[in-house]
């Protein structure tokens, strides 16, 4: 279970998302939605501990922080680095091999199986720079598979990839949900959210609504979210708001 307690996250004292109170149950399949700049990716970074809260806290129950799997946006990765696909995917075994241990035959089999599971048979030896956007996303999903994590955070996993790839990767997400893992995904396609994600959280720099997807994605909530997207203001006064 994840508890967000009066959580405010931001950069340089400016909140990207503020005063967030929410509980995410173990085994949830949750979509985080909202307009651009709503604080969705920032929330994932806060849960991961990559960003220290300006106020409040994130409490992870039953999950060690280093065992959380995270799929970042592709723009955050350097695809020009001379690395092979299997080397990239092998990082998913970090919890087993760490920084020093060399890969065993068992590890190599696991990598091959993960590549097969995401439809990248025969791609192991290719440089990551030679992959298309969709293929690269499949490779990152293979890495998440190997992480075998109880909590999986996906930042815009289906952006700029074709329908077929998105469907294949959605099947993996459903599989993780079936295995009682907690999956939280930042998404933009509301139809996709309605079809595949039973719960949703609507953000617009603060919490607009959270709960069953049909309830959260009601017209009035979406309208409110659009209204609440505020601009970054250098002269903004100090926030005096306390926890709810």
């Amino acid at each position, binding site marked *: 279970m994840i508890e967000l307690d009066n959580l405010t996250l931001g950069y340089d004292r400016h909140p990207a998302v503020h005063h967030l109170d929410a509980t995410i149950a173990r085994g949830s399949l949750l979509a985080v939605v909202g307009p651009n700049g709503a604080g969705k990716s920032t929330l994932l*970074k806060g849960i*991961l*501990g*990559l960003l220290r809260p300006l106020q409040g806290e994130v409490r992870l129950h039953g999950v060690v*922080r*280093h065992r*959380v*799997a*995270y799929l*970042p946006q592709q723009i*955050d*990765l*350097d695809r020009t*680095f*001379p*690395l*092979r696909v299997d*080397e*990239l995917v092998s*990082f998913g075994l*970090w*919890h087993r091999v*760490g*920084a*020093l241990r060399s890969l065993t035959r068992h590890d190599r089999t696991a990598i091959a199986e993960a590549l097969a599971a995401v439809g990248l048979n025969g791609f192991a030896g290719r*440089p*990551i720079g030679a992959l298309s956007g969709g293929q690269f996303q499949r490779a990152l999903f293979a*890495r998440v598979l190997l*992480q075998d994590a109880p909590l999986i955070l996906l930042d815009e996993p289906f952006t700029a990839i074709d329908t077929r790839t998105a469907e294949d990767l959605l099947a993996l997400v459903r599989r993780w949900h079936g295995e009682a893992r907690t999956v939280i995904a930042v998404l933009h396609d509301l139809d996709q959210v309605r079809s595949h994600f039973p719960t949703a959280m609507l953000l617009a720099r603060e919490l607009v609504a959270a709960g069953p997807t049909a309830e959260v994605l009601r017209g009035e909530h979406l309208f409110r979210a659009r209204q609440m997207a505020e601009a970054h203001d250098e002269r903004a006064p100090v926030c005096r708001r306390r926890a709810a």
Partner: protein
Amino acid sequence: MIVFEPLIAPFVEFEFMRRALVGCLALALGATPVGVFLLLRRMSLTGDAMAHAILPGAALGYFLFGLSVGAMTIGGLVAGLAVAMLAGLVARGTLLGEDASLAAFYLISLAAGVLLISLRGSQVDLFHVLFGTVLALNDAALLLIAAITTITLLTLALLFRPLVAECVDPSFLRTVSPLSPVAHYGFLMLVVLNLVGGFQALGTLLAVGIVILPAAAARFWSRTISGLLLAAVLVAVCGSLAGLLLSYHLDLASGPAIILAIGGIYLLSLLAGPEGVVTRRLLHQRHLQA
């Protein structure tokens, strides 16, 4: 054998040439892998700035103790690390980016260093500190370079996987391991150490040449990380050998000759390496089937 004589005789006959060669080979083994990672992390200019940053520390060592390897090394290390840390702090705490803050610090360092040396020393001493004296490496300098190379290779072996992970996907490393700061600061430490080692042979201005140029040349020969490391070391070894021989036979300044020889290999690689301009253009005239 007549062909080989000009290549071997200088090293057989003269101890100072053998010492220079050993120093350069040790630098090639340690400094070039560091250069490969600097290049891959897009920090080539950071290396250049840090090379300048060690100058005031080395100069202070010189100011207090003369041309002493130990004093200048410790001074250089402290100054290099201080500038790296300060530049990082300024970049994180202010609007100034890391490149701009490093540029600010290294310009101040360079001016302070030159001023300190000119207060006490002659033009010869200044030349020594800025461009090194690869033909006058004493036991202490050689041992220092060898020790730095040993530390570098051991540290790189230990930090190899975290370093690669941090280059490709820094947030991933931070989520799976507490080693991210160890990799980051450990690597910066290696950069400073190798620049200080290179400074003994090539001076503060040219030391970065044997760090970055072989790595840049290697990029035209290989598309794998292990291939890059191997190619960079080979380029540095060949360049050092060629530079020393050129300086011996043509009576040229040895430090610049070594860096120019490596620069020549870089230009050759740029044109004729498998990933170079000409090869890629020739290959691209006929496309593959898949």
